[in-house]
């Protein structure tokens, strides 16, 4: 099938594990100086995470409290973004919705990336039938449209945050494992791997100390850009009614079902959640783009 990234594209700058913290700071310092949009994205991501953590403080009401005497109220001082068809405060639901997006996004991408590194590294390093099997499974995976798989999988599992994370993580791990694999293959051809081997390094040591640190640049970039996509996918699922079950506040879910019947008389119901989704995904895309330019110029534009 189609290779996602040719081997030659993934050339990472070697970075020693001991210098990781200064390296992270260095990259962000560079970003602040040279990438205004990327820095804006980073700022928005920090704000999003803070909103998710301090949701009870920031929100003005409980996100699930209904108030039938204040239905479909236009935005006002009391209800900053108006109220929905059963009188819930839209602003508070947006604030709590950040929690779902953050948890689903980081959860799915975090788990998915770790599994992708395991699958890709072991596959490339071991080769043989194990690699062969993984590659055929990834082929099959690429052929099934993602949304089709998500819908079917979400029908099987009990609806909820846990299942969404599991299903999205599976998707992330399979599609990213191929990029990891090609990165590992190109790193393994480098002389320093041969040197580490000839010095008597065991397979586990070579993988952990030499291979994995050297594929981290493309992996981090992929993960950051993946966050935006995962958040969009969760929104699409919730929109179709296969995602986070109500009454939990989720941005995609706020746009679905009955809310759509009221959008003629209460357009704020449709605008606030979609703005939240767009700004969040835009922030992750901008931050990811900037990271890619700084970490891995060869990957630029490849998406």
């Amino acid at each position, binding site marked *: *099938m*189609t*290779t*996602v990234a040719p081997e030659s594209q993934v050339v990472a700058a070697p970075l020693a594990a001991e210098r990781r913290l200064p390296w992270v700071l260095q990259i962000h310092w560079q970003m602040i100086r040279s990438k205004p*949009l990327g820095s804006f994205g980073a700022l928005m991501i920090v704000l999003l995470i803070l909103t998710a953590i301090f949701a009870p403080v920031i929100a003005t009401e409980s996100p699930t409290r209904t108030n039938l005497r204040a239905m479909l109220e236009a935005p006002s001082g009391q209800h900053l973004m108006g109220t929905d068809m059963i009188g819930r405060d839209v602003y508070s639901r947006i604030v709590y919705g950040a929690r779902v997006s953050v948890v689903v996004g980081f959860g799915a991408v975090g788990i998915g990336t770790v599994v992708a590194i395991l699958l890709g590294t072991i596959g490339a390093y071991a080769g043989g039938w194990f690699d062969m099997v993984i590659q*055929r*499974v990834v*082929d*099959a995976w*690429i*052929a*099934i*449209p*993602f*949304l*089709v798989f998500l*819908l*079917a*999988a979400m*029908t*099987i599992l009990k609806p909820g945050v846990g299942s969404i994370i599991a299903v999205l993580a599976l998707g992330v791990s399979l599609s990213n494992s191929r990029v990891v694999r090609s990165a590992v293959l190109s790193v393994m051809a480098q002389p320093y791997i041969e040197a580490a081997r000839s010095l008597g390094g065991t397979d586990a040591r070579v993988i952990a100390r030499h291979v994995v640190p050297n594929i981290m640049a493309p992996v981090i970039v992929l993960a950051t850009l993946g966050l*935006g996509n995962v958040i*969009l996918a969760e*929104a*699409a699922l919730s*929109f*179709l009614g296969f995602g986070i079950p109500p009454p939990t506040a989720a941005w*995609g879910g706020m*746009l679905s079902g009955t809310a*759509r019947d009221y*959008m*003629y008389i209460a*357009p704020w119901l*449709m605008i606030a959640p*979609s703005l939240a*989704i*767009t*700004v*969040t*995904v*835009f922030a992750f*895309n*901008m931050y990811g*783009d900037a990271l890619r330019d700084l970490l891995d110029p060869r990957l*630029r*534009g*490849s*998406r």
Partner: protein
Amino acid sequence: MYHYTLGRLLAMVPTFLIISVVIFMMIRMIPGDIVDIMVENYKYADDKEHLRRELGLDRPLVVQYIAWMGSVVRGDFGESLWTGKTIGSEMKVRLPLTFQLGMVSILLTLIIAIPIGVLAAVKQDTLPDYTFRSFAVLHLSIPDFWLAVMIIVLPALWWQVNVQSGWVPFFENPLASLKAIMIPAIILGLSRSASVMRMTRAMMLEVLRQDYIRTARSKGLGSMPVIYRHALKNAMIPVVTVLGLQIPAILGGSIIMESIFNLPGTGRFMLNAIQERDYPLIQATTLIFAIIVMFTNLLIDLLYGFLDPRIRYA
């Protein structure tokens, strides 16, 4: 070339088998048996066991799978458990719509993405470049289902205009047929063009720095032939790869677009099938989607050979 194509077709067999097993097993794991739904919600029959036997759901899973594969290979996708209609006849009506929607979307993706990508590369770091790139990233971030809902709602709200229109088969009335799918196709095409445009720009930037471009320029060739005949042709391979990756996304997007725009296509058909637990239908539609993706991927791999004569599959 023939050997390569044959080899690639053979390599599709294990992929196809994995997909079919995954689809088959996944469908059976969906809780809420169709027999339960039929008996409890619709009183189709009194005796669950009898109904199960009649639908062939009492046999062991392996037998069901082999029977299913056997008929799929012969081109028979079975029949809907609800309506009893053969899926083949349903598909004959619904597949053309999804096919048309997909083709128009891809065409629009190309028409939008490639000229803009080339322009952004040629005018690197100028206002048009920044504008188009920001738009592309912005467009990657806007949920397309929201855009679709807005495009239906806002004209209706402001001008009392209904942008939805019924679909008719292309050969009956091509204009009305295209009109019905135009808006969803534009939304899908726009959202897909962002990544293709970014890839076109990145590759053009790389190619425009090559020596042979300087040679072409210095022998007095004009800008346009240099860009389109020499540079674009050499920049196309990764662009085509990215384009291939958009096919599953467009198929997935067609599910959303068809259900928002009330189009009787395969995607909406599948969404209904999932909600109604119509096993053969879900299996068939998912499998058909997967087959489409597998063949377009093959087509794209073969296209490489035409784009770059160095990759002729000996």
